[in-house]
């Protein structure tokens, strides 16, 4: 079984995002960029399935700027076999990404598609579900456990009330949550090997997908800032404050 893992290059989670003064977006110039953490978990899971002999090949795909090569190389260094970069210099919305992935999936016929549940930049949480819809296949979102059983996969999902387990027929789409695994660091030999693994570069037009945005971003602004608070000296001071607030 082949596993396909779509990944995104995003602002590193440790960097505090800064809104540009002209309100056109978040300033990414010279900022540290990384593989989206949820996608890293998806890559790790795919590589583990390969190590267990369940998967035969791990294909990673990214839609983005030329620099998205970096995150594809990271995934290859973690153990993925092959990469496709669908190069596009403008921002591509989740729906168009899902359409591109649909064409690639039709072509590559993966048994399982693993994606992060959300990208930590636009926080959309859409691509996996959209791809499942377009492919007419089942989806297991927010996975904290995944067990392949023959032509099915058991997916344990992190839901508002706790955990639930679904049984999906393969091919299926699974999106990862934080507790699925702890991704490995790429080893030095892994990084060296990644340099010679195949990375194909394509464009959205190669897949016949129109990436014209459906949404116009009119403005990006700073959220309201909270006013400065007060410091209480001890527990007694805190009790007084809580009483004033009517909490206690």
């Amino acid at each position, binding site marked *: 079984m082949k596993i396909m893992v779509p990944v995104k290059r995003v*602002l590193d989670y440790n960097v505090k*995002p800064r809104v540009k003064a002209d309100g056109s977006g*978040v300033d990414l110039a010279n900022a540290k960029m990384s593989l989206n953490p949820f996608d890293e978990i998806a890559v790790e899971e795919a590589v583990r399935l390969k190590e267990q002999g369940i998967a035969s090949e791990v294909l990673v795909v990214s839609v983005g700027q030329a620099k998205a090569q970096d995150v594809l190389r990271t995934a290859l260094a973690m153990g993925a076999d092959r990469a496709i970069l669908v190069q596009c210099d403008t921002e591509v919305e*989740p*729906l168009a990404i*899902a359409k591109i992935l649909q064409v690639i999936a039709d072509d590559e016929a993966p048994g399982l598609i693993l994606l992060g549940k959300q990208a*930590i*930049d636009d*926080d*959309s*949480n*859409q*691509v*996996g*579900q*959209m791809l499942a*819809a377009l492919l007419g*296949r*089942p*989806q297991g*979102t*927010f996975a904290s456990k995944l067990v392949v059983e023959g032509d099915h996969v*058991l997916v344990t999902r*992190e*839901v*508002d*009330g*706790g955990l*639930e*387990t*679904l*049984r999906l*027929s393969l091919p299926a789409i699974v999106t990862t*949550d*934080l*507790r699925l695994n702890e991704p490995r660091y790429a080893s030095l030999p892994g990084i060296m090997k990644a340099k010679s693994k195949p990375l194909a570069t394509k464009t959205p037009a190669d897949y016949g997908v129109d990436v014209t*945005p*459906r*949404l*116009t971003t*009119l*403005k*990006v*602004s*700073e*959220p309201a800032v*909270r006013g400065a*608070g*007060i*410091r*209480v000296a*001890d*527990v007694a*001071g*805190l009790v007084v*404050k*809580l009483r004033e*607030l009517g*909490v*206690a």
Partner: protein
Amino acid sequence: MAQILVWADHDGAVLKDATRNAVTAAAQLGAVHVLVAGSGVAGVAQAAAMISGVAKVLVADDAAYAHGLAENVAPLILGLMADHDAFVAPATTTGKNIAPRVAALLDVAQISEILSVEGPKRFTRPIYAGNAIATVESSDAKLVITVRGTAFAKAGDAGSAQIETIGTTGDRGQSSFIGAEVATSERPELTSARVVVSGGRALKDAPTFEQVLFPLADRLGAAVGASRAAVDAGYAPNDCQVGQTGKIVAPEVYIAVGISGAIQHLAGMKDSKIIVAINKDEEAPIFQIADIALVADLFEAVPALTASL
């Protein structure tokens, strides 16, 4: 007038409060029809019919909808969208699971977790863990939206909508529900609690987390939350995680105990009315947004606080 289809979030028996916030948002767009899809959901439909501002409740009662399986409910919603201009779901795990599937079938770009309605097709939504707010406008003929509960008031109980039973689309046979581990607690639900007591990595282990935080939470009638670090380490179950990728809460009082205040955590609680932070490190980022700060060792401060309330 535009017709808006709202997804009713429920567990088969009880209508979830997040539905009420979604109704408030939807009412700003047009006439509100609530879809109750499930198995044996007459009671949920009755509750939905009482929500203020709801014009009609559509009930699809079928075993195929029992667990909100996206593969089964998306075709149902798709059919109903022929007569509706927008699909609105609360940004719960169920809403987040279903809405994008519907959006793709409709060929519509979804707008996730709206914070406000600025016009018929214009909305604000948080990006980058709420460190930026984007104003976006859709050019699609129909809208698919999820609603951040904390940004809209809960619609009340002054309605009396008609209830209409609708046909079902059956089981696609691609997915089945195996089981659930549902956390049961006597405490209020995290996203609708008036007071939340949250603990972080500093709580050491699950027994310590319970011993230190539960008495305080119970004294205050509070829900219990946790940072990702506390959930990852197994101190608290996953449904307690507050943050960018967990639950979004905005209680009247949020008490953060032994939580450093990473941006991913702040994203889930910074709209709380009053934030209280207890941390032994006076440089902890949580203090930058706390209204009331106590620099102290939590293992002394929290029991003392509980005892004096």
